[in-house]
């Protein structure tokens, strides 16, 4: 069920130099949402920006939900100006979220940059279901981690930074590799799922290292420029195998797709 509503902003805070977190009150969307889904957000009642902006649902707590975003352009910049008490038009929850089969025992979640918020949501969700969760976070620098300094997810997560600085440095794929090896050794790969959300570099690298056939599930969440957000405009097509055409729609068939169905955006 999709909901279109004006939700009240509860808070809007900068959690890192270019990253913001907004909490909104939305009982209906919270009740309907699953991890991996997104909201299509009207930043402002105006034609600049013209379109809504897709943002993943971050944490959901009772009737409150979180959106976390990086300021990259006019829309995400303008969104920092909304303040508590104002309302924002939300459309959602949209798309197909991550699958969580009942017999799942281990979940490796690989979040890169702004791919982290939906992973935190998924992590909370699976942990509550009793799944062993391995939340792996990659970011360029400490400032690019989309988690507040005291965020509890920091305790649950293994964080790795591309640029050497404070903390371990390297790529999120290295952390994933480590877990694939460990779970293989403990004979758990068949009860393991891997979930990925992050830049294309991460996605393509994960396609290379993920032992696809041995896992229970491998899913990735994609981004694409969107119009309607609900499967109407055909604007958010990406190259994904398995559908009636070469393309599938991020907003409707995704954003979560089977990892190995996804084709590089660079064409053949």
């Amino acid at each position, binding site marked *: *069920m*999709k909901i*279109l509503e004006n939700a009240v902003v509860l808070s809007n805070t900068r959690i890192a130099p270019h990253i913001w977190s907004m909490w909104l009150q939305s009982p209906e969307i919270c009740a309907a949402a699953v991890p991996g889904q997104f909201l299509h957000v*009207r930043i402002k009642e105006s*034609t*600049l*920006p*013209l*379109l*809504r902006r897709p943002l993943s649902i971050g944490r959901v707590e009772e009737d409150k939900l979180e959106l976390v975003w990086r300021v990259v352009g006019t829309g995400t910049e303008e969104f920092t100006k909304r303040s508590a008490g104002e309302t924002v*038009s939300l*459309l959602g929850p949209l798309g197909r979220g991550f699958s969580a089969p009942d017999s799942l025992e281990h979940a490796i979640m690989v979040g890169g940059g702004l791919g982290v918020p939906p992973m935190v949501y998924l992590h909370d969700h699976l942990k509550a279901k009793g799944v062993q969760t391995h939340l792996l976070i990659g970011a360029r620098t400490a400032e690019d981690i989309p988690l507040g300094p005291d965020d509890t997810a920091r305790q649950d997560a293994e964080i790795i930074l591309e640029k050497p600085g404070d903390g371990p440095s390297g790529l999120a794929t290295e952390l994933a590799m480590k877990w694939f090896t460990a779970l293989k050794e403990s004979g758990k790969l068949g009860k393991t799922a891997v979930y990925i959300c992050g830049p294309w570099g991460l996605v393509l690298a994960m396609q290379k290292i993920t032992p696809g056939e041995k896992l229970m599930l491998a899913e990735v969440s994609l981004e*694409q*420029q*969107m*119009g*309607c*957000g*609900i*499967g*109407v*405009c*055909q*604007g*958010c*097509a*990406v*190259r994904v195998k398995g559908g*009636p*055409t*070469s*393309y599938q729609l991020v907003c409707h068939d995704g954003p979560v797709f089977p990892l190995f169905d996804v084709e590089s*955006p660079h*064409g053949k």
Partner: protein
Amino acid sequence: MENKNPIKVKLGSLELQSPVIAASGCYGYGIEYAELAAPSHLGAFVTKSIAPVRWEGNPPPRLAEVGPGLLNSIGLANMGVDEFCATVAPKLAGLGTKVIVSVAGRVVEDYLTVVRKLEEVDSIDGYELNISCPNVKEGGMAFSRNPAVTEELVSKIRSITNRWFMAKLTPNVATVTDGAKAAEAGGADAISLINTVVGMAVDYRSRRPKLATITGGYSGPPIKPIALAKVWEAYKSISIPIVGLGGIVTWQDIIEFFIVGASAVQVGTMLYADPNTPEKLNAGLGCYLEEAGIQSISELTGTLKTDSPYMHGVPG
């Protein structure tokens, strides 16, 4: 006393409860938005353009926002007429608004094929011939750039249907007059214009076009001045009704389109931002007409005052 609806309009034989029609490509197959906003606020909707077979559309990216405008190169991705008849058509009755199916093709015969199949479906109130899409290699815009082909296509469709239909024209021509006259001569009940304006955007860093097809169709508020000029041009040359569109956001925009010659309007891109737009537009129009003492919005069609130049700050 009769209870008159001031925003009811008639496009020849087609009566609409509101002048606001959802534009093709911006309202899917008519059922997707129904759970979000009641379709009954619309006078009608036009479906995504339907081809004889499924079209997969153009490679991504297919959309690029440019300021307050949008570029698209969907390439008429659609399910094809057979699937439409099988899966969508049964759901169309009872939506509470009129159903206009947009028809697309690469050659004249394609349009005939689609219409012949749609003739079998009951819950359709009319057709829109999309002869103006800038995003397909053959057909599309090429048709409405060629008045002779337009007339041929329109008259062939006229010969196989008694249903109301309109031809949707492109603004990407030196003059829309010839195409509008051709559609009228061919027997169309109305014309709609404009389809999108050819445009492009580039990412200066990567030096790549923002659309995989390089150029695409420009829509949204920035094209309104172009659309108004085209509707006015057409209005002066034909007598069948004109459905105006291009950049409509507010009820004031609708009044402007009527003044320059429209008898109804379509709203496209704006639906993505706010699916409640039609309801808001109706409300705005209703208030305005009442305040201005106008009995029916149709009275406004073509009322542009061209008599005397004026200046800012007219006596008052």
